[in-house]
Every structure is written in C-alpha cells, then in structure tokens.
C-alpha cells in the first residue's frame, strides 16, 4: 500500500505552455459530420484544444514553460540539481529527453536528469520522486517538466478518441522550505488492465513495420486507426475511474487525517467533463473548489493537473493554500496527493 508523506517540501513556482494552434472541436469536421461531432463534444465538454505543429514536441512546450518560470522567478540555473521530464511523447526513443533539456536550458552538467514514462497519473509520480530526492538530501532544487503531444498519438478517424486530446507542457520548481508543512501521497498501479488504454505497436514487443502503420477499420462504427495509434476502451476506463478514484481519494484523506473542508482546491486530471462531473458528484465536492480547463485545453494527459493550476489558480495561490490532486489513466496507474503551497509563483500559459 503506497501511502506516504513528506515534510516541508513543495512547489514554489509553475508555468505552462500550449501550442498557439486552437482547434475548435465543433468545427473540427475533418472526418465526421458536424451533427455527429456536436453530440460527442456536448457530452465530453472539450470545446477547444491545442494542437502542436509537426515541428513542435512536448519538450519544446516544456522548454517554453521552463524559460517563463526560471526567468519569472529569477532562478539561478546552477542551483537546479534535478530535472525530471515526464512524458509518453518524448523526442526520441533514446537518449532521454530530460538530458536534451538539461543542455537546452543551460543547467549544470552535475544535474541529475531522467525521464518518467507514465500517462495521466504522472505528475503525482514526478512530484513524489522530486520530493523523495530532496528529502534524502541529494537535491536542493528540482525542475519538473511535464509535456505531452497527445494529438500525435491518436487517430483522427477514431471517434472514441479523436475529440478528446490536446497538447501542452508545464514547468514546476520544487524545493525545501519550512512553510510547506506536510504533504501526503497515495500511488497505485494495475497492469492487469494494461489493455484498456494502449499503443500496441512501435515499441520493442511489436516493432514498427509496414503492417503496424496500416490504417484499419477497427469496429462496427467504422472507426479507423493503425496499431501505432493509441486506443482507449472507453467504457472500461469509465468504470475504472468511477470505482477507483473516489476510493483512493477517501483512502488518502483518511490516512492524512485531513478534513476536506480545509482543502482550497480539488484539481483532477482533466479526462473529460462527463466523467469528471460524475466523480465530483460522487465525492459531493463543491463546484467552486474544482478548477477545470477541459473545455479549452481538452485532455492533455499528465499535463492537465498542473496546467489547470497554472491556468485557473494564477492569482489564488499567493497565500497558504491546500490542494488535493488526483490523476488516473493509462497503465492503469492512478494516485491522489494532498499538498500545501505558500505564496506560489504562478507564471503564464505561454503560446508557442
């Protein structure tokens, strides 16, 4: 049971970045008629999202966010001794994108840099690793760069995923300070359900070939994709979220002994409006404490939690505030965290 806590470590600043190319979902009738799209978009609540162009990677979005953050906070880059890049859309299969970003951002060669490959739960994992390395004394300042270009992962001819995902990146600075108090984490994994969300080919189990790139009709609705596109078994994922997320939420709250009335904001992974609304209803949470960006940025996988904080809480974190974060998705992997911020620097959502 992965339940654990940290003392006096926290997020001192955050910035975000999104591609400037806005996709209006209601008008996105490239492969499907508008009336059919309207039904889907009304339900998932993704009115707009951002698509990176062919030359823009997750790392480029993170780089822009990091520059905004480090310049905005006037951080001495030599003091950053850990860089974690979180993504499932890295620049290359090797080397790790974090190493490229170390150089590009002008960080010290004595900095630790590595990637974490997880989806929608990943920001919580990144935080827990950065907190752990700071708690051990190995690291003083950590930079988490979390970016995704999910628009490049899913087939635009598969209506189960074509209207959900968008691209974004964020940067977060983590450091030690007595003002942060205690934070609590619950992290979970279930590989038995690996098939619910997957890109089946293009790795080393099913290597890329002419066959894996072939677009095929995959179901009775005529949806099309290749084996190198992502797919999502929506109904099973939906059931997983409705069942496990409220359970994990309650488990962590009980472990932490935190009264949920002391939580200022509940920031959920922005999966889609429908499922997020149902989870909030099940947990009986007040709407005004649940910031949301799914209407304008869509589902940006692991980026959606920190992006929502940067976008929606910009002028609200200048005092001591308590956040409950909840991420869930591909793996399956999910987690909940309760963290305090205190006069947190919140930069811009830069357009790239």
């Amino acid at each position, binding site marked *: 049971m992965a339940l654990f806590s940290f003392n006096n470590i926290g997020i001192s600043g955050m910035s975000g970045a999104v591609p400037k190319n806005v996709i209006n979902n209601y008008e996105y009738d490239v492969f499907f008629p508008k009336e059919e799209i309207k039904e889907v978009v009304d339900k998932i609540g993704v009115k707009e999202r951002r698509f990176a162009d062919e030359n823009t990677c997750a790392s480029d979005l993170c780089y822009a966010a990091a520059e905004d953050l480090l310049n905005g906070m006037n951080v001495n880059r030599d003091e950053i001794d850990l860089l974690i890049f979180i993504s499932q859309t890295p620049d290359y299969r090797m080397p790790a994108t974090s190493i490229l970003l170390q150089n590009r951002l002008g960080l010290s060669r004595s900095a630790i840099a590595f990637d974490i490959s997880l989806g929608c739960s990943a920001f919580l994992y990144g935080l827990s690793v950065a907190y752990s390395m700071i708690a051990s004394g190995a690291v003083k300042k950590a930079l988490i760069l979390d970016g995704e270009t999910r628009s490049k992962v899913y087939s635009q001819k598969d209506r189960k995923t074509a209207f959900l995902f968008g691209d974004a990146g964020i940067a977060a600075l983590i450091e030690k300070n007595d003002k942060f108090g205690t934070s609590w984490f619950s992290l979970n994994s279930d590989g038995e359900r690996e098939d619910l969300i997957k890109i089946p080919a293009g790795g080393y189990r099913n290597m890329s070939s002419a066959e894996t790139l072939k677009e095929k009709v995959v179901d009775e*609705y005529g949806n099309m994709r290749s084996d190198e596109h992502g797919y999502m078994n929506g109904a099973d994922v939906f059931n997983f979220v409705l069942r496990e997320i409220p359970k994990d939420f309650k488990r962590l709250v009980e472990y932490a002994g935190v009264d949920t009335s002391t939580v200022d904001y509940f920031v959920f992974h922005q999966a889609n409006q*429908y499922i997020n609304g*149902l989870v909030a*209803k099940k947990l009986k949470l007040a709407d005004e404490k649940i910031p949301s960006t799914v209407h304008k940025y869509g589902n940006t996988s692991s980026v959606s939690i920190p992006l929502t904080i940067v976008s929606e809480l910009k002028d609200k974190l200048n005092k001591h505030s308590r956040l409950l974060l909840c991420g869930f998705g591909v793996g399956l992997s999910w987690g909940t965290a309760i963290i305090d911020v205190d006069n947190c620097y919140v930069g811009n959502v830069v357009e790239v």
Partner: protein
Amino acid sequence: MKDKFITALAEALEMEDNEIKMEDTFRDYDTYDSLSELSILAMLDSDFGIELEMNEYNTYLTVGDLYKRVSSSK
C-alpha cells in the same frame, strides 16, 4: 423499483418510459451508442449503487436482464 429503473434507463437513452419493454434488446434501440452506454453505466452507479465490469455488463442483453441484476442487488 421497476418504474424507477425504467425511467432512469429511458433518461440515459433519451427515450420515453413507454418506449421501453422488458423483453427489448436494449442495444438495438436507435439511441444506443458508445455515449449512451456510458450514461447507462453512470446511471447504474449513481441511482442504484451498482458498479458493473464490462464483461459482466456485456452478458446482459435485454432490459429484463439488466433489471434482474438491479433488483437482485438490493
């Protein structure tokens, strides 16, 4: 109980109560698709406290099958 179930199912499928019969194969309704399927799952969870795995849900074919599952869990 039965009326409550029919009303909830009709709402999930955007149909009228009187259009739904116990012997109907619910996947054959015109309004049944992957979106309304989610509405049914959500309805079972929120209105009846039933969390169904898809492999179990997929074994239920008629409205009556689903109702039997709902009424037996109470």
